[in-house]
């Protein structure tokens, strides 16, 4: 199970990394924000998987913090892009 969870974390990391190309290419600010959002959610998934793989319940707190702050950063992006 530990191996599988690490494998799952690796899979999510790689698929989310794919989306990062949007930051480079995306013709508009919205596309870049979306790529960051995808990485935020993917990062939370990876954190939860890592926490389960290692057996450390405190990692869920990091995921919780990242969820809140990623929402905050996205709002800041939207406001910054609108100017």
């Amino acid at each position: 199970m530990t191996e599988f969870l690490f494998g799952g974390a690796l899979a999510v990391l790689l698929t989310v990394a794919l989306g990062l190309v949007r930051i480079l290419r995306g013709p508009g600010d919205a596309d870049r924000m979306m790529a960051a959002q995808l990485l935020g959610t993917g990062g939370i998934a990876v954190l939860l998987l890592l926490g389960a793989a290692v057996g450390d319940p405190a990692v869920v707190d990091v995921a919780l913090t990242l969820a809140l702050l990623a929402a905050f950063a996205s709002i800041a992006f939207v406001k910054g892009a609108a100017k």
Partner: protein
Amino acid sequence: MSALADAFTVVAIALGVVFFLAGSVGLLRFPDALTRLHALTKADNLGLGLVVLGLAAQAGSVLGALKLLAVWVLVLVAGATVARLIARAAHEPERGA
């Protein structure tokens, strides 16, 4: 019983990864911002949701499982709202949001 939980975890997480992949591929291949946003929110909702469900089956305690679900609900609410705002930013860039 534990074997059943393990099997459920494996299936749920594998499906979750599939949805994350769908989200990424959609983000890269769809033609415009709004369709890409559509793909992105699938990764947010279902990708993370399935991963959380799979991990909840492995959680040591009910409280641990509830905490995982709380993270997912938070991401759902924030993600849906941010998606709406990004869509606005993509379509009405002149308005000072």
